[in-house]
């Protein structure tokens, strides 16, 4: 019996029934019905314990398919997340199904955790399906240090990082780009930044697309977007973005961990940030442009935030070329921060970053639309894959992977919350078959931001984390409370579900030691 087919009660110890990831099992709930935006109702169907379907109903062109377990999918149905999965299924040219990853939650337009692939000939590209924070993503930087050896230095490292990486609402960075330099960053991405002294040659291959998404056209970027981008490369921002010093706590797959250069007790640094004001402005402008294009093409939009344009229309092509500018900028942003991380470690440890083994494990973007080839019903097709809060999870052998990872699969980096854990996973063959090579992107929120502020005093949270040995440097204790561990689902459960559903496999669990937030 495969893991995916395991019955719900298989890990019960007999005393109290537990579900398939070890939580106390709730009694079977009444049938879940979803009310769609156009008023139709659909019934949620269990395909297997890890896969749920919203049958094609009303204006849906394909079914909705959610990779999750019973408890989480019930929760998603209580908010509007499943309705949003169904809405995306109404967009022209969508292939196979409108998909959602286990960390699905209510977004705006697309659900967060959504994946949708569109045919080139009659499909659409949607700025809302990428999101405002274009190419928001995560990077993992390794060291050759063991926590046990440098335990007493960790507070100094965290302090230095918090001084060196600008964080917080609207913060400006140390790197100021001229107009020509910003154009070069948007067109040529990380390789350009590396050639100008920010990073190492080998960083480039450890970034999706080699650090530069082709097809970017800076002439489409407005003055306002440029103004918002010029001052912000190498800044963290606020919200759920962070820089963390972490310890590798457990290895699940030694061979893959070795290929990724990761070992138990190792000190690593994780960065989570995106395209900052530049990406937000590109999305804002193109939602308006594509909404007009959708109206002209007679496309039914269940939600205005789903504004989209045919891929092969001038507006669709322009959006892709503008989005690519945002993607390249986001990766350069994380590249500049990597440089700052290396400098900070060099300053505190009085050694060179090279000697400290501070290479990049990988850099993933979890808000993006990309042209990729996938098998659809036995036919190889070029598709436009939108990942809105989902991570690419390509299997071993994929030509997009750098040679050093080609036998292992793509490193997948999953940021958890600041109190529990983050994960390093690897891409799988079954993700290629089931989810256009995609998996989750994080834990996913369970508590609204205001509710979190009400429930959790920021200073208490800081104290509690510090008593667990986690140093916290936050610009605002109020916004810290919004990001409290209890505001998130348990990331351990989310990655377990991805593992069982075959979307990604666990390689290592990482424990936070120090957190820097805006």
């Amino acid at each position, binding site marked *: 019996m495969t893991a995916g087919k395991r019955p719900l009660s298989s890990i019960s110890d007999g005393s109290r029934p537990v579900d398939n990831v070890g939580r106390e099992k709730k009694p079977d709930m009444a049938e879940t019905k979803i009310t769609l935006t156009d008023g139709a109702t659909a019934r949620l169907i269990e395909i297997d314990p890890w896969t749920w379907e919203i049958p094609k109903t009303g204006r849906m062109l394909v079914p909705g398919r959610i990779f999750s377990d019973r408890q989480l999918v019930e929760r998603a149905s209580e908010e509007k997340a499943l309705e949003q999965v169904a809405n995306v299924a109404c967009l022209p040219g969508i292939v196979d199904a409108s998909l959602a990853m286990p960390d699905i939650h*209510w977004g705006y*337009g697309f659900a967060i955790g959504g994946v949708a692939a569109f045919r080139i000939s009659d499909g659409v590209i949607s700025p809302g399906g990428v999101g405002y924070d274009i190419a928001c993503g995560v990077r993992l930087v390794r060291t050759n240090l063991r926590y046990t050896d440098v335990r007493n230095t960790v507070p100094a490292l965290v302090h230095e990082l918090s001084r060196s990486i600008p964080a917080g*609402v*609207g913060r400006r960075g140390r790197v100021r780009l001229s107009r020509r330099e910003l154009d070069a960053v948007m067109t040529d991405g990380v390789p350009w930044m590396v050639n100008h002294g920010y990073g190492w040659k080998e960083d480039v291959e450890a970034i999706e697309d080699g650090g530069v998404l082709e097809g970017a056209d800076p002439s489409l970027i407005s003055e306002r977007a440029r103004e918002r981008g010029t001052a912000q490369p190498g800044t963290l921002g606020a919200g759920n973005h962070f820089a963390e010093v972490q310890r590798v706590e457990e290895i699940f797959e030694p061979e893959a961990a070795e290929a990724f250069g990761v070992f138990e007790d190792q000190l690593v640094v994780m960065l989570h940030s995106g395209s900052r004001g530049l990406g937000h402005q590109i999305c804002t402008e193109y*939602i308006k442009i594509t909404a007009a294009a959708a109206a002209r093409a007679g496309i039914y939009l269940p939600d205005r935030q789903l*504004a989209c344009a045919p891929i092969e229309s001038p507006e669709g092509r322009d959006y892709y070329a503008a989005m690519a500018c945002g993607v390249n900028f986001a990766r350069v942003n994380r590249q500049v921060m990597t440089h700052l991380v290396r400098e900070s470690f060099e300053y505190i440890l009085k050694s060179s970053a090279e000697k400290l083994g501070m290479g990049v494990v990988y850099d993933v973007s979890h808000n993006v639309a990309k042209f990729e080839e996938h098998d659809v019903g036995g036919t190889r097709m070029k598709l436009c894959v939108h990942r809105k809060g989902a991570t690419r999870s390509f299997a071993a052998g994929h030509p997009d992977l750098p040679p050093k990872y080609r036998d292992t699969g793509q490193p997948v980096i999953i940021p958890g919350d600041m109190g529990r854990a983050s994960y390093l996973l690897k891409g799988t063959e079954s993700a290629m078959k089931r989810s256009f090579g995609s998996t989750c992107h994080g834990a996913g929120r369970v508590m609204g931001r205001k509710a979190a502020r009400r429930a959790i005093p920021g200073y208490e949270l800081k104290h509690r984390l510090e008593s667990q040995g986690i140093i916290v440097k936050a610009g605002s204790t109020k916004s810290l409370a919004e990001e409290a561990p209890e505001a998130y689902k348990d990331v351990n459960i989310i990655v377990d579900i991805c593992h069982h559903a075959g979307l990604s496999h666990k390689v290592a669990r990482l424990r936070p030691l120090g957190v820097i937030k*805006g």
Partner: protein
Amino acid sequence: MPAYEVIEHTADVGIRAYGDTEWQAFENAALGMFSLITELSGVNAEIEFPVDVQADDHETLLVDWLNELLYIFESNRVLLSRFEVTELEDSHLKGRAWGEPIDKTRHELKSDIKAVTYHMLKVKKVDDRWQTAVIFDI
């Protein structure tokens, strides 16, 4: 009835604002948005900024009005605490906003609003009062 209230959303936050006129509901939406960014009572209305936006309908005008205010906040590094809509036509809005430069010793910045979304966007008259609703990407 309050001028505005916060809409709870799992990942993000929204504002539902009210007014005797549509203009006032737009002004209160702006107040609500800046109340998410900082404590409004600590922001002096010293410097004036003009706003002038065009869009096809009033829902989009609301989004553009708020986006424009976010842009003023980010590019001038000012907090805004007073708002006035002076013209609101079919496809055109003119208004003004007042605020002061961010002073880290007095102002705490609470949330980073990335953008104003179109999800659940509303501008409507209910009985004799105007209502607006927007969700922000945080």
